[in-house]
Each structure stands twice: as structure tokens, then as C-alpha cells.
């Protein structure tokens, strides 16, 4: 007679209860830590003066057939005046300068397969809005930690706009891809 399974069935995960306490916590980290070790965490910063006619726009576009999926890690923005809005757009149309994503592992030679653009022209194409935040003076960080997934053939766009006047402003987006 064959042996029975000692714990769960051998085709199932082993059910476990983690019994670490505050004295000896389990150490875990965010996916970004592993993505950076793998050389697959990338980012694009953009700094400019925002005016009504000239928003700050970054688009990360995942080309069809790229073989990788993009997971949004973090979006940041900042402004020197109030009444600046940060928006995240799904599948907008952006024409702008192509820029090279920076690998957050400074020793890695891996490059992103995404197409990254910065622009100071408003996105078109009637994109859906994922997030819209009105900023005070100063910086803001929005962590997504993979909450936004961009498969091949899709894009994510950050846009910093101002209703009137102008302001020094910045934005950035970081992501991992595999």
C-alpha cells in the first residue's frame, strides 16, 4: 500500500500559519526590491514649467508583441504653486520626444522594452482617467505597487496641468516589467 500524504495532498500547497511575532518578524519587502535586483525596475522623470497650454506629460507605452507586461510602481509630482492637477490616463495619444528609461539598478545593462515619451502638449484620444489629484505646493508620491497593469498594446500617461498661470513643476513614473 502506498504511503498517504504526510500533510496535505502532495498536489496541493502546504497549508502553513506564519507564527512570527514582533520579537522575530518575518522579513518581507515590496516587489520593487526584487524587480530592482533583477534590473527590471525603470523610471522616467520630467521637469518643466507648466502652463495652461503646456502640461507636463510622460507616456509609457507597451508596444504590441513586446512580450512583457508593465506594472506601475510609483507616480510622483510636485509644484511650486497650488492649483496644479496630476492625472493618470489610460491609453492616451501622446506625441513627444522619445526618452530612455533609467534602470534603477545602476549596474544593470538591461533596457526597457517600453516606449517612453515626454511632451508639453495635452494628450488626445479621449483617454479614461484613472487618478486625478489636486496638488498643494510641494511634492506628492502615489504608490501603486503593481495596482496598474499595462499589457502589450496599451499605455499609461501622467499629466500635470494648471488651470491658469504657470508654475515650476515635476512628474515621474516608475514601473517594473517582465
Amino acid at each position, binding site marked *: 500500500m502506498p504511503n498517504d500524504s504526510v500533510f496535505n495532498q502532495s498536489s496541493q500547497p502546504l497549508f502553513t500559519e506564519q507564527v512570527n511575532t514582533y520579537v522575530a518578524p518575518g522579513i518581507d519587502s515590496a516587489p520593487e526590491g526584487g524587480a530592482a535586483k533583477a534590473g527590471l*525596475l525603470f523610471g522616467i*522623470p520630467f521637469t518643466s514649467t507648466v502652463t495652461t497650454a503646456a502640461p507636463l506629460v510622460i507616456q509609457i507605452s507597451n508596444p504590441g508583441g513586446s512580450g512583457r507586461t508593465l506594472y506601475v510602481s510609483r507616480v*510622483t509630482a510636485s*509644484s511650486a504653486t497650488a492649483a496644479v492637477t496630476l492625472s493618470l490616463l489610460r491609453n492616451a495619444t501622446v506625441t513627444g520626444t522619445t526618452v530612455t528609461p533609467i534602470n534603477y539598478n545602476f*549596474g*544593470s545593462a538591461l533596457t526597457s522594452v517600453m516606449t517612453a515619451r515626454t511632451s508639453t502638449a495635452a494628450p488626445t484620444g479621449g483617454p479614461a482617467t484613472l487618478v486625478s489629484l489636486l496638488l498643494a505646493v510641494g*511634492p506628492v508620491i502615489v504608490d501603486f505597487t503593481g495596482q496598474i497593469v499595462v499589457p502589450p498594446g496599451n499605455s499609461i500617461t501622467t499629466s500635470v496641468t494648471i488651470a491658469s498661470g504657470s508654475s*515650476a513643476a515635476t512628474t515621474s513614473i516608475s514601473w517594473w516589467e517582465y
Partner: protein
Amino acid sequence: MPNQFVFNDNDQPLYVDMVNTFQAPDISAPPEISASQAAVLYSTNTSASSLVVLSLISAIASIRISNASGSGKTVYISRISGSIGGSSLLSAMSGSFTIVKGGTLTSPATLTPTNNNLGSSATSAMTVQSSTAAISGGTTLFNYQLAPGAFTQNFTGSIIVPPGTAICANVTSSSSAVGLTITSALGLLWWEQ
């Protein structure tokens, strides 16, 4: 007949399904806790002040962490903090905060990193410098406009500085309000492994 594998194949990890619930949550902590217990978590800080005498003036604080080739250690950035403040008239000042891949400092002074395990005599393998001038060269990773107060960006190891590379950060505050003393402060936290 040989026994079958009791769990997964023995060349595979053991697949587990955690059954903790809100009544008995799993207790976990970020890697910094382990790094500080191992005495490999380091801090460094600098600040700069300027008195506005006649016209627009800036207070500039820059730090560079350089990981020498062959150091045998890799730097994992835990956190970078910047702050700006003034003696009064905070509405009359502005500031910016920049993080740069690579880059160099002008007229640098040596900083000695502090081990976050206060009982440890272990020292950092990095060359850490400060300057009261802006960063030269490098590739900008982040750039922010600051409001008076403190600003922290957590990375938890998601910026990696291997041997032969460097990271710089800068905080600049500016004001033209005569009589105002402005201050920029900057701090970095990292572990080495």
C-alpha cells in the same frame, strides 16, 4: 517501490499557502529591520544655511555616495529625505529636491556615515561626501519642488548602487526676503550587502 515525494518534487521550493487571518495576522517587517540588526544600515546627513542679504540667495546641500569598484558591497537605498525651512516668512521661500544617478560634487567634504545599530563599530565601505554646491553631471532620477517642511521618499532597496557606481542627492532652498535665514537639509539611509 520507492516512496513518492512527500511534498513537491525535491528540486522545487515547498509550495505553501499561508492561512493567517485578521485574528492571527502574519507579522512581517521591512528589510531595514534585519539590516540594522546585522549592523549594515547606515545614515548620513548634511545641511546648509544662508542669510538673505540683498537679493535672491540659495542654500544648497548635496550628498554623494560612491561605491568604489571592487568594494565587494552593493548599496541598497532605503530612504532619501529632504527638508527646507527658514527663520520666518516661509511663504517667501521655495525649494527643490533632486536625486541623480552618478554625478559628482564640487569641493566635497567627507562625511562619516552613522551605523543605525548604535552599539556597532562596523563602518560603511562607501565614500560619502557632502557639498554646498549643486550636483554636476549624472542622470536625474527624481526632481521635486518643495514646500517648507520635510519630504521623504522610501525606496526599500529599489535603487541599487553596485561597485563602480554612485548616487547623488541635492536639496536647494531659495529666497529673496531680506533678513531671512534659509536652511536646506538632506539625509540618506541605505544598507550594504
